[in-house]
């Protein structure tokens, strides 16, 4: 019986993620970027849920903390800064939309077919504790160099942002 619960939860979270993802991207009701931002946050949260199901507890926390918290806030901040109103209704270019959807569908079909064809082992392999200790241990032993590189990357990012947002940028 205990098996039942996780798969039910999986479907719930997966369903939510997909629905919110769809609403974020192509919200039939309102074209307002804020709504899509909100739905993106919800998608991220439901993904965090999935992470938990996959025993990646630390990542789920990071996901919520960094992604939902920091990144999305930044998004909202920028949306507010640019006080974008409703996207005015330009004529919808039916053809390009259709073609766009078609090609995306083709790629989705390909990926899914590949996944289904691969038939990975459905069985539940032994759990790997995804908690902080293991992750932290691997990070600071095996992947120390990339870890430090990350800090450098963030630094470069900050310098870039400051430069870009200078007032007198021609």
């Amino acid at each position, binding site marked *: 019986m205990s098996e039942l619960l996780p798969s039910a939860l999986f479907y719930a979270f997966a369903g939510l993620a997909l629905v919110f993802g769809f609403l974020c991207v192509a919200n039939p009701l309102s074209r307002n970027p804020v709504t899509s931002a909100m739905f993106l946050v919800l998608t991220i949260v439901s993904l965090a849920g999935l992470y938990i199901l996959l025993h990646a507890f630390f990542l789920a926390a990071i996901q919520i903390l960094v992604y939902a918290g920091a990144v999305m806030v930044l998004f909202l901040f920028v949306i507010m800064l640019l006080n974008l109103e409703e996207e005015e209704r330009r004529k919808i270019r039916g053809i*390009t939309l259709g073609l766009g959807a078609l090609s995306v569908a083709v790629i989705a079909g*390909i990926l899914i077919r590949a996944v289904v064809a691969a038939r990975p082992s459905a069985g539940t392999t032994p759990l790997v504790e995804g908690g902080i200790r293991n992750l932290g241990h691997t990070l600071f032993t095996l992947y120390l160099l990339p870890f430090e590189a990350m800090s450098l990357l963030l630094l470069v990012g900050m310098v870039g942002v400051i430069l870009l947002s200078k007032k007198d940028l021609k």
Partner: protein
Amino acid sequence: MEPTHLPATNFQDLAWAILLLPLVSALAITLGLRRNRELTTTLSLSAVGIGFGLSVWLFFLYGVSGERLAATPLSWMSVGSLSAHLGLTVDPLSTLMLMVVTGVSFLVHVYSTGYMEDDPEYPRYFASLGFFTFSMLGIVLSDNFVQTFIFWELVGVSSYLLVGFWYEKPAAADAAKKAFLTNRIGDFGFLLGILIVWAATGTVSFDAMAAKLKAEPGILGAAASLAGVLIFLGAVGKSAQLPLHVWLPDAMEGPTPVSALIHAATMVAAGVYMLCRVYFLLDLPAAWPAALSFLGSISALDVIAWTGALTSLVAGVIAIQQDDIKRILAYSTLSQLGYMVMAVGCGGPDAAMFHLTTHACFKALLFLGAGAVIYACHHEQNIWKMGGLAKRMPVTFWTFLLATAALCGLPVLSSGFYSKDAIFAAALASNRPVLFGIGVLVVGLTTLYMSRLVIIAFLGESRSEAASHAADPGRNMTLPLLILAVPSVSLGWLPVGAYFKSAIFPGAVTHSAEGFSDVFFEPFNHSPLGAFLGFGLMAFGLSVAFATYWGAAMDPMPGHLPRLSRALRNRLYFDEIYAATLIPLHDAVAALADWVDRWIVQGLFVRGISGGMDLFGRALRLVQTGNLQTYAFLFVAGVALVVLLALK
């Protein structure tokens, strides 16, 4: 392989000397002595004079004795099975023709010194005349087809230069162009004939070909008659036979001595001479390739005979209504050439050669006489503006009269009578009565138009100011007239038959007197029908001429038969027919090719490609819309496509 040097024995030197002297004089004149007239005259006159002397000597050396001298050839080009060389054959046929050509040419040279005296381009005239004599002698002495073809075209070129001598006169320039192009049509057929014969026998030299033909008569197979007719086409072009005769009357635009030399005696006779030279090729049984099998029984000789007869008839009829003295003589030449070709066709090359020789003399005399008349009447050529010249120009009149008698075939007193009779005998011998009839009829026509000319131009009163002051031209113009009068009258009295039988055509049946004794009345007992009928028609023609034209101020014929005379004056519309059909048709084809070239090849093909490139470039540009999403979409579509292809 160094070219073989000039042959050692002096007789061959003679042949080479005769051939090359006129060329040397022509080159010397053009290159160096343009200004110096005396030197030009002496040089060209001596060149042809010596040539004539040597020819006479060779005639007695080789002609009478019947031997053959084949000068060692000077190689021209030999590759694979084509070995073309410049070789000379000195045999009775060629020595006879040599004498005719050099003789008449020499007299015309003498005559020209007077006639062309006041022409600024005097040296160029004599250079061209020399070049013509060289080319003509090349044909006479040639011993293979390639050499004949080369000199065939060179003769065409020299006739082009001479007819177009006064190139500033549009009529002369057009006449020259017309002459050359019509000759070219003939040469086109001639070349194809040579190719057929060369391909079949593997050689181009006459003797080798004759030997091969004798050894294996069927060697030409189905193409025998076709080759014969094609080679005859060459003669048609050069001797102005029916379909290609239109250039000769127009060629009268050239100076009169030129007409005398080229368009009466020598060049037009080249066709007949060539036919006699390759006679062994022509009298093969009829054999047509599959495509032309409907011509089954007709042999090459039939075609030749009929073309000759028709030409002589048509030319004779047209001549009646011509008013220009030189045009009348031109059509008369056409008619006489028709006789010679008919003679060859009727299996009588000897008759043809005999008539060729006599015709060369009296026709040259007629033309030179006409030249004298024109010279005296200040370049007036219309006979209706002359008249009463007999009294004022006695020498010209009497020599002209003798030549006319020879042309019409006055019995006994003229050479023409004997040569024409030989032709009639040939026609009868090869049982072609219709041709014989035409031949005899043409005698009547000839007498009619010649006596018309004599009556209007010489007898009666002078109809124009210039004619009333006419007088005999200077000595160097009248002397050739007198000299030419002698053979015109006496040539028939020589035992020509014997000469032909023994020397030129051993096999052929000859149609003229053998021995000295029975020469005078030979024609009457040899072929009585021809002689008497001929004489009868001649008398008839004479009487008709006198009846209609004696004392007439104007040509009465248009009055009586308006439509016929207008047709004859327009030369039976041959020129108009050609100008309406062949020439525009060919120009239309050219226009089509030009249109295709301009629009299809250059337009569609070249500009099409460059235009296509341009369009393709423009189309590609549309893709760069600058819209990020189209790029993204294209990118995704690309990825989708690639992955799809990779996975499939």
